[in-house]
């Protein structure tokens, strides 16, 4: 009697969306894509053919953009009336719980639309008493639940049933976490100072600046791409979009793709056809970045290309999201599984067209 063991050797599913469009097209969704990716961890700008960043882009990177970290903030503070009136409703508030892994712990986030998202464990959900949905991933075993509280609703005020129920739930479970906070007041050029003073009296707050890094490349091989063709060419005149994306990833990780190493070690080299460029610059910013800053960089690069300040044929802007964020784009649920990646890259061409790569992991909804 022999036993046959059936092993599933297929890799986990992942999603990559490649979009080709023009900035001038009315239906172009590039703005929506940038602004709805709320929690950004790292932003990287890669410009081949330049030794330094063009002036407008440089100016945007140099602008100080700090974020705050608040330690041990209980969730009852997030439904505080003053907090909602002064900050949630008067600008874009981005808050994400720090050092909480989405597959292990409870994760809390405040979106700029005024929604408080709680991704909680089954035990916490049963004690919290607020109605939510089970997580969309791993539906058979309901281990995680997503609860949404709309802070901007008119009826969400102290004294009303809904508010009191939420408050009692938070008090009963005593939920608290460290939060990363970024606030962009609407309209006036106000600084984000008031938010800090709101919390400073009772909780430990700290101000952090984004970590910036510049890398310069010399004698780099660039794959040749045709802005109007994503797929493979018949004569081998240009590289496919996917090959280009892999190459850019290699450059970002510091992998040398110029010389082909011995076959035994690696068979990867820069995709053909390729061209040699003398210099290239890569500038990155790491921390807790608001989408507004990403949009500013994008606009700066575009204006530099229009003004001929930037001689290169294209520029690439990559934005990495937080692996532990409960949402990827807008309100699409995000999970970790093996990698927790939710990142996008904009390949900006001189003729005002672009390629958008959106990469998400297994436990994600296709953007």
């Amino acid at each position: 009697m022999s036993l046959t063991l059936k092993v599933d050797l297929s890799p986990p599913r992942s999603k990559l969306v490649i979009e080709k469009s023009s900035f001038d097209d009315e239906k172009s969704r590039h703005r929506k894509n940038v602004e709805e990716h709320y929690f950004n961890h790292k932003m990287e700008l890669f410009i081949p053919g330049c030794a330094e960043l063009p002036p407008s882009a440089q100016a945007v990177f140099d602008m100080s953009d700090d974020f705050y970290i608040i330690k041990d903030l209980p969730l009852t503070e997030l439904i505080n009336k003053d907090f909602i009136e002064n900050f949630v409703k008067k600008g874009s508030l981005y808050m994400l719980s720090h050092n909480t892994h989405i597959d292990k712990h409870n994760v809390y986030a405040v979106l700029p639309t005024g929604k408080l998202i709680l991704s909680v464990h089954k035990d916490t959900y049963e004690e919290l008493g607020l109605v939510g949905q089970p997580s969309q991933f791993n539906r058979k075993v309901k281990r995680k639940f997503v609860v949404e509280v709309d802070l901007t609703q008119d009826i969400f005020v102290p004294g009303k049933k809904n508010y009191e129920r939420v408050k009692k739930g938070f008090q009963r479970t005593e939920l608290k976490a460290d939060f990363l906070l970024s606030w962009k007041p609407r309209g006036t050029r106000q600084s984000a100072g008031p938010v800090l003073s709101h919390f400073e009296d009772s909780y430990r707050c700290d101000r952090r600046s984004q970590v910036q890094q510049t890398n310069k490349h010399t004698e780099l091989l660039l794959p040749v791409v045709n802005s109007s063709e994503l797929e493979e060419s018949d004569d081998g005149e240009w590289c496919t979009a996917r090959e280009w994306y892999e190459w850019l990833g290699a450059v970002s990780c510091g992998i040398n793709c110029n010389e082909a190493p011995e076959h035994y070690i690696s068979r990867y080299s820069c995709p053909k056809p390729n061209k040699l460029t003398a210099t290239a610059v890569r500038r990155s910013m790491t921390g807790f970045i608001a989408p507004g800053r990403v949009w500013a960089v994008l606009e700066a690069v575009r204006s530099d290309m229009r003004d001929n300040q930037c001689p290169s044929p294209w520029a690439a802007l990559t934005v990495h999201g937080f692996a532990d964020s409960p949402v990827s784009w807008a309100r699409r649920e995000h999970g970790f599984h093996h990698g927790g990646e939710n990142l996008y890259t904009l390949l900006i061409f001189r003729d005002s067209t672009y390629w958008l790569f959106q990469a998400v992991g297994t436990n994600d909804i296709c953007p």
Partner: protein
Amino acid sequence: MEGDQNQDLLYQPLPQHISEEKEKLGLKELDCPKDKFVESFLERHIQNFKPSEKKDLKKSYLLLDLPYRQKPTVAKKKTTLNSREKREKKVYDIPPEHQKYSLYVPLHKLWLQYIKDHLQLTPTSNLTLLQKKMLKADVHGALVTVCKSRCPAYVGLTGIILQETKNVFKIITKDDKLKTVPKANSVFSVEFEGLRAKIYGNHFCMRSARRASKKFKMPMKNPTIDL
């Protein structure tokens, strides 16, 4: 054949050892025919024996060899109502006039007294013993809160237990609302005398009368109390 044998047994002559002692026992041979003897026997022993009854007696024969069939006993009429009648007559329903929290506060005070006596609370009482006694205690009148539940709508409900059935607690809240909370998949907390008891509803799904006599065993297979 057996019937003949039985008949033989019935109509056999007297055994030998008795027939020998006939004079001593005072047994005489029958000197008249059998039916005449029966008539005279009946006349002597029945009061006011009428000749017409003789005819009736003649008709009714007592058959000794066949077994006597017992008449079926009439079932005693049930004095309790079945559940359909209970629901129709609304025996266990609490009418709206009685759904006022203030009416049941004295009941709660009574329950506190009861639980104090039942558990014999002292500052040094052993908690495990208390737990065992608590399992058998009656909860009618206890102030209970739902602290955990698989359905989030039940969490946070606080009130006095008015009725306990097999699967459900009927609780009256401070807002004079009668809430029916299922015991399953919920954890209730009862507070008294500075102690807080947690009742895991999943293990409490039985009638209160039965619970008093049931022995709760520690589950060896599934020690988790996951809802």
